[in-house]
């Protein structure tokens, strides 16, 4: 089966302009009121208040297309359901904007983990309000070219992580400074002279570059990482330090600093290097002191350009079918010479480390059956499935058709089935039509070197007729690796496939920049699905066949004999 690369940047023409929004509303109102061909749809009181809509999630061309096709019911059911669906938006800042200096970082510790093929950072910062008014907006700046590569940005109160993540907004770039900001909204305004300890965690994609950029097939690979010894903060920081954790103690090059602190800088302890602590009370915010480190990382840098993940719910079949389509690239050092099959066999025999993707290990939840692994050519027989035993996870061991070296691509699809009863429940209470689905947002390969995703599109394909769809991601005490709900682009549409008349309600969730830290992050989707919705398929076939019988009887009654009348 051929896998075609779809345009990843679809639906980017979101409706944001005022006149477009008005047009959109008029179309959707027409659809909701049944003027587009379905008079039975009512304009319910819950959805009539557009003031409660932060942003509509449907794109204008999408709605116009549906209205042309006279699919008012689908549009209206989508909008009826769109009560908690989101369109990420960014705040516009005026030119020359600088965050007001109302806070001071008393102490800042940045932990940078380089053990995986992307950068993981956790910043613990003690923030003090130095203004004479309570303040609740804390700005975190990033250069505009880095901002879109930040994944899973999350902020919590370090002393009370169980209170959940703070609401975070993103801004557009400020042209004069070239910075983009995350605006952290503290749940309660911080009183003057009060302090709060924030724990800011995120990952940075594509921040590591191989040096040298080309190596021979059996060479070791080295990655470089550049950063500033002074944390790029919007506020004055009294003291700060940066701890770097490398995958091994083999760090071939690193910058040493002069005059920033007494004693050697960095301090080394095994695979951990510490820059600082620095006294930066008199250093202006935004001052940089570049540091570069280079370390051994003879592992692949697995980057998924696009992951499309489908979760298909079947009430009739009692099945949850999962299919994932990957467009994968290895961002490791490229081969200096031609690929040698002999060398590769030798490396494999020795189990020597390599920067090529040799195998992908994919744990599957217990009860997963019927796995398949297909690429552009067809079934890939070099895979192995170790089924789950009891509550232990099954393992899908995928060997690509060829080793994926630096700069090489590989696209494939995998899929499997699960019993639906493990993932779907009927809501307790009087409304038995309501169903609750709890499924992983992201699964993906589990690799020691990590996997980074540039774009993830998750489609939850619900049964035909499902309506009143809502979703949320499940939060725990620790980060689930996902961005905040306001950074997930969610929309509803319909998809027609076997035995469908209206099409199945599909919840599509899109996230840019994600890492395998979000692996096993769960989401909950609720929807209503009545008995009449369920009986639509057999009754359609029933009606078709009965019509045939009646036609056969009726045609049989016609007298076509040649006789005298």
């Amino acid at each position, binding site marked *: 089966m051929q896998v075609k690369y779809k345009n990843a940047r679809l639906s980017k023409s979101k409706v944001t302009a005022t006149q477009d929004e008005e047009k959109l509303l008029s179309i959707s109102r027409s659809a909701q009121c049944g003027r587009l061909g379905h008079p039975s749809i009512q304009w319910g009181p819950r959805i009539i208040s557009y003031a409660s809509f932060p942003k509509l999630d449907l794109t204008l061309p999408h709605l116009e297309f549906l209205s042309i096709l006279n699919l008012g019911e689908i549009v209206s059911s989508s909008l009826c359901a769109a009560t908690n669906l989101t369109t990420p938006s960014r705040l516009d800042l005026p030119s020359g904007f600088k965050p007001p200096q109302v806070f001071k970082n008393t102490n800042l510790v940045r932990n940078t983990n380089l053990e995986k093929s992307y950068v993981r950072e956790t910043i613990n910062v003690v923030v003090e309000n130095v203004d004479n008014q309570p303040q609740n907006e804390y700005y975190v700046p990033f250069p505009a070219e880095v901002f879109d590569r930040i994944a899973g940005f999350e902020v919590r109160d370090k002393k009370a992580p169980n209170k959940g993540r703070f609401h975070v907004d993103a801004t557009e770039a400020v042209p004069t400074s070239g910075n983009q900001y995350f605006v952290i909204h503290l749940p309660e305004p911080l009183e003057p002279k009060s302090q709060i300890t924030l724990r800011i965690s995120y990952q940075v994609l594509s921040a590591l570059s191989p040096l040298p950029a080309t190596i021979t097939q059996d060479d070791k690979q080295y990655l470089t990482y550049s950063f500033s010894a002074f944390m790029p903060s919007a506020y004055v920081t009294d003291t700060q330090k940066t701890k770097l954790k490398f995958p091994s103690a083999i760090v071939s090059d690193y910058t040493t600093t002069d005059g920033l602190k007494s004693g050697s800088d960095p301090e080394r302890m095994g695979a951990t290097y510490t820059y600082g602590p620095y006294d930066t009370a008199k250093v202006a915010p935004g001052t940089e002191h570049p540091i570069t480190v280079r370390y051994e990382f003879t592992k692949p840098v697995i980057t998924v350009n696009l992951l499309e993940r489908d979760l298909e719910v079947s*009430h009739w079949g009692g099945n949850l*079918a999962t299919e994932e389509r990957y467009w994968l690239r290895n961002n490791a050092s490229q081969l200096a010479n031609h690929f040698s099959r002999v060398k590769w066999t030798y490396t494999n025999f020795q189990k020597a480390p390599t920067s090529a993707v040799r195998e992908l290990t994919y744990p599957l939840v217990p009860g997963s059956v019927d796995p398949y692994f297909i690429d552009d050519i067809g079934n890939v027989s070099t895979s192995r499935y170790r089924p789950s035993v009891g509550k232990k996870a099954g393992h899908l061991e995928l060997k690509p058709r060829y080793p994926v070296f630096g700069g090489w691509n590989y696209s494939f699809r995998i899929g499997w089935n699960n019993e639906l009863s493990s993932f779907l429940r009927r809501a307790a209470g009087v409304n038995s039509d309501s169903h609750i689905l709890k499924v992983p947002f992201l699964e993906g390969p589990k690799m020691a070197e990590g996997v980074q995703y540039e774009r993830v599109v998750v489609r939850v394909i619900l049964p035909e007729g499902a309506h009143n769809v809502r979703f*949320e991601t499940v939060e725990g005490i620790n980060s689930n690796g996902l961005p905040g709900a306001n950074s997930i682009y969610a929309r509803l549409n319909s998809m027609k496939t076997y035995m469908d008349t209206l099409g199945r309600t599909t919840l599509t969730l899109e996230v840019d920049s994600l890492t395998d830290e979000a692996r096993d992050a769960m989401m*909950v989707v609720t929807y209503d699905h009545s008995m009449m919705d369920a009986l639509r398929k057999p009754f359609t076939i029933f009606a078709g066949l*009965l019509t045939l019988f009646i036609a056969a*009887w009726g045609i049989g009654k016609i007298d076509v004999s040649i006789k005298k009348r």
Partner: protein
Amino acid sequence: MSLNEVWEAASATPFVPLISKDSQFTVGFNLLLIALITATLFGLNRSFLGIASLGVPAALAFGFGAVFMICAAGVYV
């Protein structure tokens, strides 16, 4: 109430399909067989009474049988 709490509250009511996966083929096959037989009988004597007594049961059996058979074949609709 978060949706996750709704999920937890519904722990006593897991979704149970009408026909389990193991029985889909048997049920689907038998319903299609009934549909074939009743449709054939209707075809032999096409009358208005035949539509009610044979045509409707045949159409019903075919409708449900087709759904279960396509599920049994691995296309979960």
